[in-house]
């Protein structure tokens, strides 16, 4: 058990390093001079020089790389050009909104998706099964921001049941604000998880040990929940990981539609305003979130699959 965990932790370090290098390189190969692009064409030469000085752009690349890495380790991500606030502070403010959206969306998505999948698998080729398949087909196709816009139009604009924008203050108000965007993401996740549950269950139904369970006299209910679903958890865990990551990236667009002050809005805003430090910070946060989610899924995997926990 420890061995597998240790290896996963040990793998995470180079991954983070590689990600940071990718981000560092990405920011440095922007077409044109970053200072010019940031300050605009009519910027005065000394302004450009001050900007380069501030961002150390005129130092040798490896020097910039070390400062960059040093900064990340000491949580000093530099200051935002436009809002002259430390990037870290802006990120810290925005992060909770993204996290809560992802968690609520995942919760709703899984609690709808898994039962739907079980329903479809156990009543194969009958109404619920084709219903779930249609639902997942649509779910796979609808772009998240489009669904968000539709829900926004009907529930917020026309019916006025939900706020039109903002993240809300205080627990209940934030929950009130997060619900509609979470439902948007949860709809797509339920479709994905539903289909995945259905396919993994159907695959498990074909396995020999399910037949053994029946031969022992277990009734269908026990066969499904005690044996089949328990084994379907393995592929489901991978599916959950993929869907968590998909929600993270989906949240960017949905935050824009619902005007939520999350990391997504921050990042997209920074990109359009060419605010380097914030872009860099935003991408780093997303990258670290991805690595964290992957680690989380590996831990879940150990809990679910004894073969990883216990050596032969």
């Amino acid at each position, binding site marked *: 058990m420890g061995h597998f965990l240790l290896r996963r932790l040990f793998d995470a370090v180079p991954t983070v390093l590689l990600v940071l290098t990718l981000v560092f390189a*990405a920011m440095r190969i922007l077409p044109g001079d970053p200072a010019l692009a940031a300050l605009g064409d009519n910027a005065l030469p000394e302004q450009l020089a001050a900007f380069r000085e501030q961002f150390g752009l005129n130092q040798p690349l490896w020097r910039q790389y070390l400062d960059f890495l040093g900064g990340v380790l000491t949580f000093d991500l530099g200051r935002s050009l436009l809002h002259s606030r430390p990037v870290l502070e802006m990120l810290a403010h925005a992060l909770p909104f993204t996290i809560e959206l992802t968690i609520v969306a995942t919760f709703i998505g899984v609690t709808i998706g898994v039962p739907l999948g079980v329903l479809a698998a156990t009543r194969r080729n009958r109404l619920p099964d084709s219903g779930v398949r249609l639902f997942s087909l649509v779910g796979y196709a609808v772009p998240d921001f489009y669904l968000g816009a539709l829900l926004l139009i009907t529930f917020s604009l026309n019916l006025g049941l939900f706020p039109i924008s903002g993240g809300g203050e205080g627990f209940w108000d934030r929950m009130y604000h997060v619900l509609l965007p979470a439902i948007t993401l949860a709809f797509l996740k339920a479709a994905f998880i539903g289909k995945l549950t259905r396919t993994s269950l159907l695959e498990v139904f074909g396995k020999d040990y399910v037949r053994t369970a029946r031969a022992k006299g277990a009734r269908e209910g026990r066969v499904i929940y005690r044996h089949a679903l328990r084994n379907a958890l393995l592929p489901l865990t991978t599916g959950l990981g993929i869907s968590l990551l998909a929600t993270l990236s989906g949240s960017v667009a949905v935050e824009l539609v619902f005007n939520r002050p999350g990391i997504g809005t921050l990042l997209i805003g920074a990109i359009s305003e060419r605010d380097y430090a914030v872009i860099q910070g935003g991408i780093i946060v997303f990258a670290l979130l991805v690595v964290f989610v992957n680690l989380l899924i590996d831990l879940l995997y150990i809990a679910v699959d004894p073969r990883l926990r216990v050596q032969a």
Partner: protein
Amino acid sequence: MSAVTERLDLLAPEPSRLAIVRMVILNRPSTIAAVCLILVFVAIATAAPLIAPYDPLAQSYIKINQSPSWEHWLGTDQFGRDVLSRMIYGSRNSLIIGVLAPLVAAIIGTTLGVVAGFFGGIIDRVISRLVDLLISFPELLLAIIIAAALGGGFWNIVIVLAAAFVPNFARVARAQTMAVRAEPYVEAAVASGVTQLRIIMRHIIPNIAAPIVVLMTLWTASAIRLEASLSFLGLGTQAPQPSWGNIIRDGLNNLFGSPWPVIGAGLAITSVVLAFNLLGDTIRDVLDPETSP
């Protein structure tokens, strides 16, 4: 059913491939609908200049944010441009990117996958390491990072989307290659003195083609959706070029006035992506029966 056919201790003679195709397509109305929709979509995209009522870029200050009318079936956007024409030209964008990006990704990804899977050793470890890293990133995030670096624009999006898909093709190709390489008929080829290159061409590629083609069809759907998302985020097709994504983006700030541009463009994306997903499932059932759920 699979357990039962095994249990039959015997292989019933397999129906010819044509029979499967006919059976799968004919008795699935959804597939016929999907194929028709794709054909319509392709027709619109190719004949865009002929059927679009107005020039998609023509602005007019007097007709800003008009709701649908006989003159403008979907109304106009904040620059007075005809939304319907922009949608028609936008389909061109989606089609080309939707087909091009997965194609480019398939070629690069499959080559990497086959090389890693067939030769193994250090090449395999390096490629797999990179693929595992990139695959852990959702496509959209990867696309955003690269788009942020490269900026928008048609060819950049193709590169962005292709780069986002390459890891998936590489991983599928590698897994399939290793599976085929372990088959006795490849060992038989080695024993018959067939050179490695010819083994790849004659045995590996034909036997991994099916899952790759299925992946390409499914990725066409994702490419169209991702292009729309990127354009919506302002990282894809740059204004004033029309794309379904940025039509929705523009339409958002005129939701009060007329939600129709958003609803129209959204519907277009959803139906085309749905059609390609359906097509992908059907192709999988025909080409790769074992893996169909």
